[in-house]
């Protein structure tokens, strides 16, 4: 790869000159009145800029859309007056290799996020019932002493296995803040039960190693595609930044690429790409893929030689040793498998809701237009049987001749360049036990019963010796709001004889924060120096960066940084020296980070210089073509799957011996709470809970500008609404046996009949009757882990909707 590294001088010379006067550490300065009547009496970092002059400091958007977009904060007379997008000079921007990371609306709202009234101000201890939200202000010393003594008590009474470091994604610094300081400390303290997977891509992560492993073509390679078919993938909303996957799709459209979107929703992505929309019944994607395969076989439209040499179990001839007869993909689609059902377009039409002719024409188009890229996103795998489509789509990519070529790809996610910089070192976890990220409520209620068997699939040990007694929850709203079935989780957490101690370290009074025993107020990105690396979720293409996030105001109220808290706890646990390892300040940790970057990028600046320029960008003028070497020679360059091939039949999955739910080949499995579930008579509408443009998961839900811009609602098709007498904007009641939500209806043609969508991430707000009045889908979702990943199926739900 020819890498074109360059140092981007992000700020004009005049600004640099002005900035050289700044003393970042000193804290004086007058009160910083946010214009418009808000005055928090804040101190800003001293600045020597003349009155009325503006200076720009780089900051980053460090939340979990994966974008990590770049902003400049304009500071004038001691106040952050406004934000500007990625201040990289336009002349350094190459729209085809290294576009500027222009933030979306979420990043642009950061001033109102920082100064939101929901900010936590002081350390708090719970005084009421857990979850009631009654707290008393305490000192930092009392808060930290209490946490340290509870850590010692629980370690002694139950062992380190009773500790859990909760999944969360609210802050994503490279460091020195973020999750690493506390992970480091808790491991030095003896460790904790860890988790595998994520709430984003549990099934993808679990299934991918058994089909292709690895990652796809780098995102900007879409500029070489003639046809792109997206299965789900609302990239312009989920990966919205100006250099992210959504940008590349839009750029490809400008380039003349045709898009087809298979999705129950005419998403903003499908709309903006002017895509052909193929609205599918959710959860039936494998039926569609099987039928398209069937068409390609029947009409001889696939690469037979490639499938014979590069895939395992495509047909009977390539089944691995020990596989039963008629267990191949070919047997499945031609009706020779155990179900004896031929997977014709007519068969799939009845399941997917897509007319048979359309299925056939789609198959022909994918098979004939070259190169064609098939992309899957993560929405379709947050479903009851989310592992199945993940493994199915690469089969079509392989059959249609697009696997391992430019402009095509292996039918998985796109990829991107990682920025090579190490964060704070985190030692190995002395506790070997690992649970699935989604199953922590079981760890609380029945930890000692959890085993490596089919039900729980814990890893590292055969069974757990303790249930969870201590939870560290940092920058996360997953404990309640983002986990399935809020009413169930509430019951579990309310019993403080089960989970004995819950610490939440947060910036906002979220629904989860209300459940803390000790609640610690954290700083936001405005309030501390930090470094961010810009590879995001790794789907941004072959460019990346490191960003110096400047401290632009003093910490608000009594808010503290993650590093400081870990240091303070380390001292109280007698681990101060081990924790610091000679690092006496934030600077010391950042010096190490900069040094590690310099090993990979010789022209990476000194920390001092990095602070001044703010941004260091790197890009490549060559795209990564995934598995091109495998395509050329599958024997010399095997995939990293267990069989080294495109593993359509997986002996590893067969070995689970759970063929109904973990089949060796991907299969269409009718969902519980799908349209064929008898519960459908009572609750006739499917409900998805997709990402919302005005939030990154639940982050930003409290920001007034964003609430004003995009209203929380439930999407319902015009025909379903008409049957119920519902008009656009009417308040409706959405309910099932698990809960009830009241919110406005968005009545639209842009969603399939029988399907609804309630954007995920709204902070639930209960009225006196226990009804959520904000619109949080997790009042209605089911805690039912997926078979292989034990992941979250938060898009698989049945509900009823009525006009209020």
């Amino acid at each position, binding site marked *: 790869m020819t890498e074109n590294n360059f140092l981007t001088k992000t700020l004009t010379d005049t600004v640099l000159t002005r900035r050289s006067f700044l003393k970042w550490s000193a804290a004086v300065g007058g009160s910083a009145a946010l214009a418009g009547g808000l005055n928090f009496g804040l101190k800003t970092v001293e600045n020597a800029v003349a009155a009325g002059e503006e200076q720009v400091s780089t900051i980053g958007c460090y939340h979990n859309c994966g974008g990590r977009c770049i902003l400049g904060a304009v500071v004038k007379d001691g106040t952050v007056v406004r934000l500007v997008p990625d201040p990289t000079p336009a002349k350094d921007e190459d729209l085809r290799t290294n576009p500027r990371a222009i933030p979306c609306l979420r990043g642009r709202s950061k001033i109102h996020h920082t100064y939101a009234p929901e900010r936590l101000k002081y350390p708090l201890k719970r005084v009421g019932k857990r979850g009631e939200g009654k707290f008393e202000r305490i000192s930092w010393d009392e808060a930290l002493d209490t946490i340290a003594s509870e850590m010692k008590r629980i370690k002694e009474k139950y062992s380190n296995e009773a500790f859990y470091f909760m999944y969360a994604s609210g802050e994503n610094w490279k460091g020195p803040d973020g999750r690493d300081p506390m992970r480091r400390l808790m491991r030095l303290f003896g460790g904790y039960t860890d988790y595998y997977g994520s709430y984003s891509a549990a099934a993808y992560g679990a299934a991918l190693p058994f089909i292709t492993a690895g990652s796809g073509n780098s995102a900007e390679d879409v500029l070489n595609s003639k046809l792109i078919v997206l299965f789900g993938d609302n990239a312009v909303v989920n990966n919205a930044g100006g250099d992210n996957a959504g*940008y590349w799709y839009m750029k490809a459209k400008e380039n003349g690429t045709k898009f087809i979107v298979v999705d129950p929703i005419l998403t903003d992505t499908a709309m903006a790409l002017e895509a052909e929309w193929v609205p599918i019944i959710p959860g039936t994607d494998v039926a569609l893929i099987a039928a398209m395969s069937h068409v390609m076989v029947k009409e001889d439209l696939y690469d037979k030689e490639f499938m014979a040499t590069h895939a395992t179990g495509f047909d009977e001839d390539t089944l691995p040793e020990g596989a039963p007869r008629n267990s191949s993909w070919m047997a499945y689609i031609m009706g020779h498998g155990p179900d004896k059902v031929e997977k014709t377009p007519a068969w799939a039409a009845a399941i997917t809701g897509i007319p048979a002719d359309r299925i056939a024409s789609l198959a022909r188009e994918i098979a004939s237009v070259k190169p064609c890229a098939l992309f899957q996103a993560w929405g379709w795998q947050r479903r009851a049987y989310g592992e199945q489509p993940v493994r199915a789509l690469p089969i079509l990519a392989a059959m249609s001749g697009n696997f391992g070529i430019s402009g095509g790809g292996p039918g998985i996610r796109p990829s991107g360049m990682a920025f090579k910089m190490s964060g704070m070192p985190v030692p190995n976890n002395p506790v070997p036990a690992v649970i699935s990220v989604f199953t922590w409520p079981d760890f609380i209620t029945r930890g000692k019963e959890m085993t490596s068997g089919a039900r729980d699939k814990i890893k590292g040990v055969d069974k757990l010796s303790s249930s969870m007694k201590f939870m560290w929850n940092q920058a996360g709203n997953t404990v309640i709001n983002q986990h399935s079935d809020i009413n169930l989780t509430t019951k579990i957490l309310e019993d403080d004889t089960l989970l004995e101690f819950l610490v939440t370290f947060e910036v906002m009074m979220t629904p989860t924060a209300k459940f803390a025993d000790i609640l610690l107020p954290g700083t936001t990105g405005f309030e501390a120096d930090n470094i961010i690396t810009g590879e995001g979720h790794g789907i941004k293409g072959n460019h990346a960066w490191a960003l110096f996030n400047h401290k632009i105001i003093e910490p608000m109220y009594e808010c503290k940084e993650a590093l400081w808290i870990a240091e303070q706890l380390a001292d109280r646990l007698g681990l101060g020296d081990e924790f610091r390892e000679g690092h006496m300040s934030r600077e010391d940790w950042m010096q190490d980070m900069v040094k590690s970057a310099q090993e990979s990028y010789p022209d990476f600046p000194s920390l001092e210089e990095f602070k001044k320029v703010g941004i260091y960008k790197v890009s490549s003028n060559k795209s990564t073509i995934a598995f091109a070497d495998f395509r050329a020679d599958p024997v010399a360059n095997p995939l990293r799957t267990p069989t080294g091939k495109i593993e359509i039949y997986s002996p590893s999955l067969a070995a689970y011996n759970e063929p109904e739910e973990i089949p060796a080949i991907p299969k269409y499995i009718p969902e519980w709470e799908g349209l064929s579930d008898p519960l459908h008579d009572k609750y006739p509408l499917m409900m998805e809970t997709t990402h919302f443009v005005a939030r990154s998961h639940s982050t930003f839900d409290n920001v*007034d500008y964003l609430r004003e811009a995009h209203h929380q609602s439930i999407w319902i098709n015009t025909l379903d609404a008409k049957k119920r007498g519902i008009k656009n904007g009417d308040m409706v009641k959405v309910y099932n046996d698990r809960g009830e939500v009241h919110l406005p209806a968005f009545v639209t043609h842009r969603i399939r009949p029988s399907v609804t969508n309630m954007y995920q991430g709204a902070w639930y707000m209960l009225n006196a009757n226990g009804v959520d009045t904000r619109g949080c889908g997790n009042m209605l979702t089911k805690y039912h882990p997926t078979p292989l990943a034990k992941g979250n199926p938060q898009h698989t739900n049945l509900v009823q909707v009525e006009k209020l």
Partner: protein
Amino acid sequence: MTKQLAFSVDIAKCTGCKACQIACKDKNNLPIGVRWRRVFQYEGGEWIKQDGQMIPGNVYAYTVSAACMHCENPICMDVCPAAAISKRADGIVLIDQDKCIGCRYCSWACPYGAPQFNEDLGVMTKCNMCVDLVDKGERPACVESCPYRAMDFGPLDELRQKHGIFAAPAPLPDSNLTRPSVVYRPNRVTKSSGDTSGKLKNLEEL
């Protein structure tokens, strides 16, 4: 005379995210309820039965970002009883907040609803094209904000040469009313002002 300045928006690049609206509010420090730039969501079509399955028949949607159009014939200026509205030599239409009496005539007269009452200030306000930035040679905040580079800014005649002369996508009003200084590049499904096949979908957000 200086050339009339204008915005352009490429509807084919607009995802409806409203980064432009938030950037505008951030730059101009606007309170809740005042949106100098807004994004209209327009949608049409129907669902039909084919081969026993429900399919979308010509279902379409697009979004239109719009602010004050700094019109050639600024009707807001004509109706203002306090003579608080003026048009600069470069065509930027401004409200003088010291003269404004908050009567809202301009808001009622403007077919785009661009002037909006700011309760904190007690006067009418509207998009001023980030005149302070423009006077420094920079571009308005909204134009710089678009992750998809859908917006452009400059002299109207240059924008017309670059992007065409279309100025009235539905659901915006007929451009003959005030001769707006704006260019919209339509996408394949964009309808013209007066279209009745679709509906404005997000009135509550405007």
